[in-house]
């Protein structure tokens, strides 16, 4: 049976995108989200927030998405948490690289805020289906 998807940790440095994604996920998608502006903030928040899924930007100042993912995997109990990259860097080799790192899927930017929630639920279904 597919576990329920409620809590999403959204890691994104661009404030405008933070606002739009928040509307798309909360207002449209009815998820509960926690937003972090950097990789290191995400690593700090993840233990207390206990998300079901992490939506991770790739290009961030300081610790980038892939580095954050590798660090996450080293934390206790977080090795299996599904991570979706949401990025504008979606050339074929880049996508392949994210999947090698263990991302369950990749959502390309610019994304459609009206269908973002549906896209995430579909991926969730595939992961646990």
């Amino acid at each position, binding site marked *: 049976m597919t576990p329920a998807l409620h809590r999403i940790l959204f890691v994104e440095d*661009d404030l405008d*995108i933070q606002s739009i994604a928040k509307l*798309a996920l909360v207002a449209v998608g009815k998820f509960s989200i926690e937003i972090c502006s950097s990789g290191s903030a995400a690593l700090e928040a993840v233990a207390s927030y206990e998300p079901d899924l992490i939506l991770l930007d790739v290009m961030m100042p300081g610790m980038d998405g892939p580095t954050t993912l590798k660090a996450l995997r080293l934390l206790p109990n977080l090795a299996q948490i599904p991570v979706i990259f949401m990025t*504008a860097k979606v050339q074929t080799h880049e996508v392949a690289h994210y999947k090698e790192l263990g991302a369950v899927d990749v959502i390309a930017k*610019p994304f459609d805020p009206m269908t973002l929630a549906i896209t995430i639920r579909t991926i969730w279904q595939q992961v646990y289906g």
Partner: protein
Amino acid sequence: MVVHSSEPVSIGHLLQREQMLAAISQRIRRSLDLDEVLNTSVKEVRQLLQTDRVLLYQFTPDNWSGTIAVESVSNETLTILGRNIQDECFQTDHAHLYQSGRIRSIDDIQAANIAPCHRDLLASLQVQANLVVPVLHHDTLWGLLIAHHCQAPRVWQSQEIELLSQISTVIAIAIQQASLYDRLQTELAERTAISTALQISRERLQALVSNAPIALIATNAEGIITLASGTILQRLGHRSEDRSRHDLGHDSEQFSADWVGCSAFDAYAHIPDFVEDLRRVLAGSLLDSLPDSLPDSLPDSSPDSSLMSVVEYEGYIFEVRYSPQINGAGAAEGVICVATDVTEQRRAEEALRQSEILRQSEVKNRVLLKAIPDAIFRIHRDGTCLDFKPSKAEASETPIIRLNQPISEVLPPPIAEQLMMHLNQSLATSQPQVFDYQLQQGKAIDYEARVVMNGPDEVLVIVRDISERKKVERLKNEFVSTVSHELRTPLTSIRGSLGLIRGGVAGDLSSEAQELIEIAYKNSERLIVLINDILDIEKIESGKMSFVLKPVELMPLVEQAIAANRSYAEQFNVSFTLVNTLPKVKVNVDSQRFIQVLTNLLSNAAKFSPPNETVTIGVTQHDRLIRISVHDRGAGIPEEFRDRIFQKFAQADSSDARQKGGTGLGLSIAKAITERLEGQLGFETEINRGTTFYCDLPEWVSVGDREIISSSEAQSPARTTLQTAQILVCEDEPDIALLLKRMLQQAGFRVDVAHTAEAAKQLLAHQTYQVMTLDLALPGQDGISLLRELRLQEQTRLLPVVIVSAKAQQGRTEFGEAGFAIVDWLDKPIDQDRLIDVCRRAVLSSRNSKLKVLHIEDNTDVVRVVKLVLKQDAEIHQAVNLQEARQKLKAHNFDLIILDMGLPDGSGLDLLPLFNHETGSLLPVVIFSARDVNAETAQRVTTALLKSRTSNQELLDTIRSLVSYVD
């Protein structure tokens, strides 16, 4: 005192005189010997006159001295024959008198009235009386006929005087006759000499004409051939019907008869240039100056080049010289043509010129070659360097490789291996092979190697430093990636905000606001598409767009594309209708890219359709070609735009882009993608009626159990596999021979043994071997001498030879550089692994083709992947079940088996006993299965790989290591 002849002239005497005269006359007429006639005459006259001396005095021309030419004397009288008389007294007036016929008779010298000097002269000759008669020859005073009486004075009788006069006349006749005869003789001799000289000259000419490479053709004024002779007439087209009866090289006269009397214009019609020149010469014209192609030296060698021309016939080149025979009136009575075959000379000159051109081009090439910055290597099939040119940068450094050095000694093993693989590929396909590699030379340097076949056994390898290019490529990729990221980030916010507002998340909008938001949203979409298209174009143009081809059912993809574009079409009030379908038909495509193509066609059709129209989509089949057509009822494509519709940024009207919201890149991308899918994109259009775009793709046919995956299979020639490779062991020591045989048999080779060089040669003559092992120390002919001999023979020139000898090390040092193309040198005791490895490599390189692999697998997709992974190394045959596998194993020899365990008609493991080849060797078997194998099974096969855990590289490495591509 004068003595008178006492007796009167008797009748008898007269008669006697008449008889003598007649006899002398007759003798003169009969004999041509003047001396004899004269001697006899003077003798007989003396007898008849009964006097002491009768002589003929001959004058020296132009001088009145003379010689006693003929004489008859009595016994008591002094002979004066031959004496030269310088008679000072004999004056010119005397000569005149004699010339006019005077006869002078002196009865008594002492009493006569004569000059004292004359008297003294006569006295010195004992003369007492004399009678002198001139001998006139052609009215010239030739000489004098003189009778001397010495004993006493004598009175000369008139009859006697008469007689002497008559005799002188007869003598004159004799002299004239003799002189005539002499002249005749001289003339005759001259004529003979001339005639002989003429004959010699004729013979010489004939010999010249017969032996020199010339032909002599003479014609009269009308061009009728009067003479045709020479050894090269044949080359001018003369044919003799009875030629077979003559020996080759025989005199050429046989040809001449044939055409004499014919018109040269007809006879030589096959050489139009010659006929033309002949006409001109006969008409008295000069010939054109020589053609440009003639070497400069030729005109000089001809005295009059205006009467010389060059004609060609059947590959022969002739120089023809014309000598017109001009008559007194200045008209040509005929012409003699001398044709010289200058073919050889011309060829030699041409060859010289060519070699000069070649030399110059060689010099140029050298310069060019030096100017090329790349390093260039000539590499033999066996991997040794035959020649090289360092790159410009390395030119001053120490050479990177020596001649005859194997490349494996200077390149890291994986790169050397890669190079050998491309070398073999290039030799097998004669197609250039290109690959990139990186070497660590202090820093990492990227190289591109281009392997080009250069003869049956060698390649040219052109190596270029592409570090700079690689760096630029990396920078460009990073730039493109960064730019697209930087553009997309703000777009994400814009499009996101607009999307949310448009979706009503921010509350309801006025209709004006709604309309403005739509415009902004639509343009943000367009910008996104543009960025994506630009990235696609960049990838297509740099060849970096990757495709994952898979056989998939076509209809679901078409339906998916229609569904995805339906809402887009609705903006234009356009609907999609699918009219023909082909369920179950499969195509081999990258689904995502294929949908991209369909999306482009569908969105274009929607955009260019009038509102409330329908776009019709159809899928049809023509033979093996599947056509997906998208038909709109739009305005059609203007004539002038049709040619460039697939070009980048092409739109019929530049305002279209803005109106219709396109980028102008879509069709260009769609066409490029379709071509990569081995398909074709095209269209049919009619103004005001609409346009149909279609995409044709080859149907993917599931070939099931008959499938031959490798498309090159059909053309691949018969080959030797490892299993059928024959090895000749040449070794005199029976124990070692047996050991070698066992070792090689165990590895799956068929082995013959020769104990002597002689036996080896016999076996090699009757059987083809892929490899020979050779002992250096053989009885009789030793190994090196045998090798030397084998290398000289065509059949064994390239036979891979492995030296197995206790003296291998020594041999290597001694003969290693001798260029015998020895594969390897193995010392005794023999290292079995190395022996087998070397032999395998030699077999592989000698047959120079791919491995033959049987892949027993029911899932065709897996076979396709394996085929892709191994495409450089192996030719893959598929068997989908046990039954087919058994059949194929019987019918073919394979080098390796890839085995799936779960097959429709049983477990693949059931086949394991079959792989025991009759020679006792084990075929390498790789289990490639979704299920893990247990320990027992693992022992029975060479390697087991788990499908889900094996990367492509691992599979490739495993296969390669099993067949000893690698040391």
